[in-house]
């Protein structure tokens, strides 16, 4: 589903964010990308939905080589990839429903169908009763669930979540990750970037650990935990 071959990413007059990253994420997998701040987690995710382009190496998503697709084809790739942003990126003057409906409007879904699908999605994330609320009136966890609903409403095959629990307390963190696990069980490939070690120990999933822009570990939770404890 997602393949990276010797991928590097660097910006002018700055040390490289990613160096020689090679990895493969299969369809239906749940993967944590972890590492300290500045390790390159967000950059890795950005490469996967073409928010950034690799300086060298190849990134393949769903069989498409992102280094070779034209800018005009990027929107069509993104329609198949849901993204949960660390800073939510919600429109504060729009209601929860309107925020969730955004990807459907882009797809040209009719108003009636759009309302129906948004209602179903809000029910799924437990926010049906907040459909007409504005985001500032929601808690952090609720706002994050709105973002997840928006990312999933057009049924993408891949869900990328960049620090989805970064600003949440432990209880809400579990709530959000349970939701992401549920999404994964339904067949969506989920990639979550997090630096929260407690999350890694609670959910026994594959871990890709980055340090200084390099993959220093790619394996299951137990070995990852041992590695994190070691340094």
């Amino acid at each position, binding site marked *: 589903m997602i393949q990276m071959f010797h991928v590097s990413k660097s910006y002018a007059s700055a040390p490289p964010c990613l160096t020689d990253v090679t990895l493969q994420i299969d369809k239906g997998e749940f993967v944590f990308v972890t590492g300290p701040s500045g390790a390159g987690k967000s950059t890795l995710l950005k490469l996967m939905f073409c928010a950034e382009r690799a300086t060298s190496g190849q990134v393949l998503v769903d069989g498409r080589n992102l280094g070779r697709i034209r800018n005009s084809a990027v929107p069509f790739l993104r329609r198949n990839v849901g993204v949960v942003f660390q800073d939510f990126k919600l429109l504060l003057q729009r209601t929860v429903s309107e925020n969730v409906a955004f990807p459907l409007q882009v797809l*040209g879904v009719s108003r009636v169908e759009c309302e129906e699908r948004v209602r179903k999605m809000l029910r799924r994330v437990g926010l049906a009763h907040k459909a007409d609320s504005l985001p500032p009136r929601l808690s952090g966890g609720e706002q994050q669930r709105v973002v997840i609903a928006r990312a999933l409403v057009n049924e993408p095959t891949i869900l990328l979540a960049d620090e989805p629990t970064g600003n949440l307390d432990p209880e809400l963190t579990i709530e959000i990750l349970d939701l992401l696990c549920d999404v994964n069980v339904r067949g969506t490939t989920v990639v979550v970037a997090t630096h929260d070690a407690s999350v890694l120990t609670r959910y026994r999933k594959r871990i890709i650990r980055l340090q200084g822009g390099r993959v220093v570990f790619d394996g299951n939770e137990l070995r990852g935990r041992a590695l994190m404890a070691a340094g």
Partner: protein
Amino acid sequence: MRALANTAYFWRCAVQGVRRAPLVHLLAVFTIGMVLLAAGLARSGISLLDSLTESIGGEVELTVYLREGATESSAAEVARLLGSKTGGSAMVVTPEAALARLRAELRGVGDALRDLPSNPLPYSVQLRVAPALRNPAALRALAAEARAMPLVQDADYGEEAVARLTAISRAVRYAGLVAFTVIGLATVFIVAATLQLAIYARRDEIEIQKLVGATNRFVKAPFLVEGGIQGVLGAALALAALWAFSQAVGPKLQLLFAFLLRPGAQLSLVSPSVACELLLGGGVLGLSGSFVAVGRFLKT
């Protein structure tokens, strides 16, 4: 179905955009309105000039001078031929009558003509053409046709005056076109600047749209509709101002410029064709402004 949903969405977004930043849009509408008002007034001025050219063309009679040696009967034949061709009236002027007329026109100096050994003036035919042919182009064609007749020496209808007026009218028209192009471009940039403020206010929305898979065309469309709405509202404003102007000073202008107008012609500032032209102009200005603004924003 998808196109319909998209169209409905673009219109909803455009109307919401106008509602969210009414002052910015009002400024753009006002700018477009003023430019179109000026264009509408200029158009009336040009049509007034056209009318003057046509009326002068209509007033001038076509005088056909026959060759030396032409007789009264041959002059009558030419008059009959030209009269039947044009559907107007043709009158033969004998050399004696022409000389008498010249003498009268020269007044005091006219008596000098008595000393001429013989009358140098030829037979001529004075032609008053039918109203439908009273325009420079028809007169020019008729004069050319008369000149081609074997007995005819020359034909005159005040060609120079008509040509000069036509040239003035053309120059004014070109000058107006250049001025409108320059002002139109300036308006496009003013509208673009105002719309850029509206776009900037919605930059978060655009960013999210792009992140969830919106194409540039999808992002642009509501702003283009907004620009179109501004253009149409600007045109409506210009039309309303033109109508008010014509109501307030129209009758006075009609009296003032009556000498320039053809008999029975009305000085009209607002007509269906003017309305269509202004609406089209407004639409083009609004769309161009929004196209420039959103294009510039998406590039950055």
